[in-house]
């Protein structure tokens, strides 16, 4: 009996120690989250119950009349932006124009709707409660389409934010900074493996505390003289670039950073 109690005690104490050592939340320092914003929840009626109902009714009527007048009037021609005669259309502009043309072709009646004058009988028909449901359904469809289109992007951004600790824009900013600092040695043999992986230890302000070439052994291998040159150029880029453009928050996530310098893509072009 005493033996089993003793064993149970030992086992439990081991479990407690293991849990204390290995549970991640006990090991890590608290994550520096952005400050919490306090939001007051109020009843809708607090805002919507207007004390002077009669006055409010007059105002509502006035607004309604104004709205009706707008519907029955001919809309003035919309002002167009003056363009410089020598302006070369940007590709984005061309895309926009193309899209507009496509829209017109697909739905020619929509244009007519805009310039049509509504009669007094038609005014009531302009507002159709059923159309709201249709619009809601359409918006749902559009949202679904957009999500489908951006499925890859969404997955990638999820990977970026959780697996690497940087969002896409943060990663892009960092890449753009290092692209400008990395002077690629031009005599590299383009048919060899030209990947250099460098691990960095960063300070919160983005300056580099420590650098480590991960495939260091490759430097001393025969026929890999170019690798040393490539690794040195990568280290030089990191030093020239510092302080690196890192996010102002989440230091714990990016304090250890690995940069994979790959020259193959550029040289093979």
């Amino acid at each position, binding site marked *: 009996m005493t033996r089993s109690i003793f064993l149970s005690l030992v086992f439990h104490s081991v479990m407690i120690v293991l849990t204390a*050592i290995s549970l*991640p939340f006990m090991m890590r320092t608290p994550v520096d989250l952005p400050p919490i914003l306090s939001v007051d929840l109020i009843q809708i009626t607090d805002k919507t119950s207007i004390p002077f109902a009669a006055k409010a009714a007059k105002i509502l009527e006035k607004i309604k009349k104004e709205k009706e007048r707008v519907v029955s009037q001919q809309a003035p021609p919309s002002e167009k932006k003056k363009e410089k005669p020598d302006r070369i259309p940007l590709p984005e502009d061309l895309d926009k124009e193309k899209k507009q043309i496509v829209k017109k072709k697909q739905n020619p009646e929509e244009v007519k709707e805009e310039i049509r004058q509504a009669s007094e009988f038609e005014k009531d028909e302009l507002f159709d409660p059923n159309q709201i449901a249709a619009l809601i359904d359409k918006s749902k469809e559009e949202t679904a389409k957009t999500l489908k289109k951006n499925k890859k992007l969404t997955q990638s951004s999820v990977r970026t934010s959780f697996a690497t600790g940087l969002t896409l824009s943060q990663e892009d900013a960092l890449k753009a900074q290092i*692209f400008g*600092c990395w002077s*690629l040695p031009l005599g590299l043999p383009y048919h060899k493996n030209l990947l250099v992986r460098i691990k960095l230890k960063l300070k919160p302000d983005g300056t580099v505390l420590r650098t480590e070439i991960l495939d260091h052994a490759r430097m001393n291998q025969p026929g890999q003289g170019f690798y040393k040159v*490539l690794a040195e150029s990568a280290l*030089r880029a990191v030093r020239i670039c510092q302080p690196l453009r890192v996010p102002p928050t989440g230091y714990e996530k990016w304090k250890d950073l690995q*940069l994979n310098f*790959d020259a193959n893509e*550029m040289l093979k072009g």
Partner: protein
Amino acid sequence: MKKLISFIFCLFIFNSSAEALVEVDITRGNLEPLPIAVSPLHVELGSKDIKQGNTIIKNIGERISEVIEINFRRSGLFNPLKKNSFVQNPEIAHVKPRFEDWRLIKAQALVTGQVIVSDDKLRVEFRLWDVVAAKEMIALAFSTTPNNWRRVAHIISDKVYQRLTGEEGYFDTRIVYVSESGPKTQRYKKLAIMDQDGANVKYLTLGNELVLTPRFSPKNQLVTYLSYFRNLPRVYLLDIETGVQEVVGDFPGMTFAPRFSPDGKKIIMSFAKDGNSDIYTMNLETRLVEKITDHTSIDTSPSYSPDGKYICFNSDRSGLQQIYVMRSDGSQVKRITFGKGLYGTPVWSPRGDLIAFTKVHKGQFYIGVMRTDGSGERLLTENFYQEAPSWSPNGRVLIFYRETKSDSEGKGFSAKLWSIDLTGYNERLIETETDGSDPSWSSLLSK
């Protein structure tokens, strides 16, 4: 129960150690030439000026740094910074550079050095510094005769080039070429040799015999060339160091472009026998001639691969002049060019990965490169007339010659040597005293 315990244990351990490391892929960089500062070499007190022939060379430290700077600029891989922006004294910079000052002028590498000249001895030492990492990359010293100061500058250039690019340099090399003078209809052609930057020109023949297609031995300072003696083609061997010249043999009919094998023991060439031009080799020790191709068409311009296992050549066996590759014994002949136009003068790169060639298409001449199977053809330069590419020993730069148009009387004609690197953007004229053609690049002298 035990399994459950061990599972829970592993779960805890892995959970705690699996911290995701932020990884960022850098796939783009700056392809601009590397900014480098070449500080004038400090001349030690008591050093003498150098006498070279009738000229006295003062400020030898500055002269050496100028030669290094010109080499770097011509390579297209470095951007030597202007000396008037340097703030540190060369003597102090050689001992302890103030890296912050060099970083201010955007230098990423720095070359410093010092020179001591005594009666018959020149001692040059140099250091290469990584300005960004604030550390020394290489330090060497050379002792030689004072007249060799240009060679020392070229050797320093090679060492720096190798340390910063990872591939061998090509500055301590020579170029042998045919020096031309006189009107187009009556050209005097002499064999000439110079440093790769156009300095130290020496004429090896008198110009009374027509000389053609000089080629360097890849192993030593031997040159083989073709000369017409009493209207008969002769293949010569010339030792550059000793000046000793010997006739390899008289060959019948039209003989073309003798070239060494990679081990320097054979000469490969083409000559016409019984009215048909084929490719032959000659063993330089035994003088035995061996026929490599046997075809009714015209086979010319053979060139060995660096391992000596293959030969590329041009032939009109398909009806048009195209480039072919075969094994060095003449077997497994394979056509590798199928593009429009005529292809000629194929030369295998010392790296072994590319073949340089001349292409003629719609009346224009192109110098280009392609892989050894004929794929990836890239035309580097186009002109009215240009041909005969020859590789630098590191396989990065090509030298060739280009002729200009002339009128019916031959006026306006000139032939100049040009170099271009594999990018196709770094094309440079090599200044020579006279016109030049048929250049051939030597291997590194200080290998």
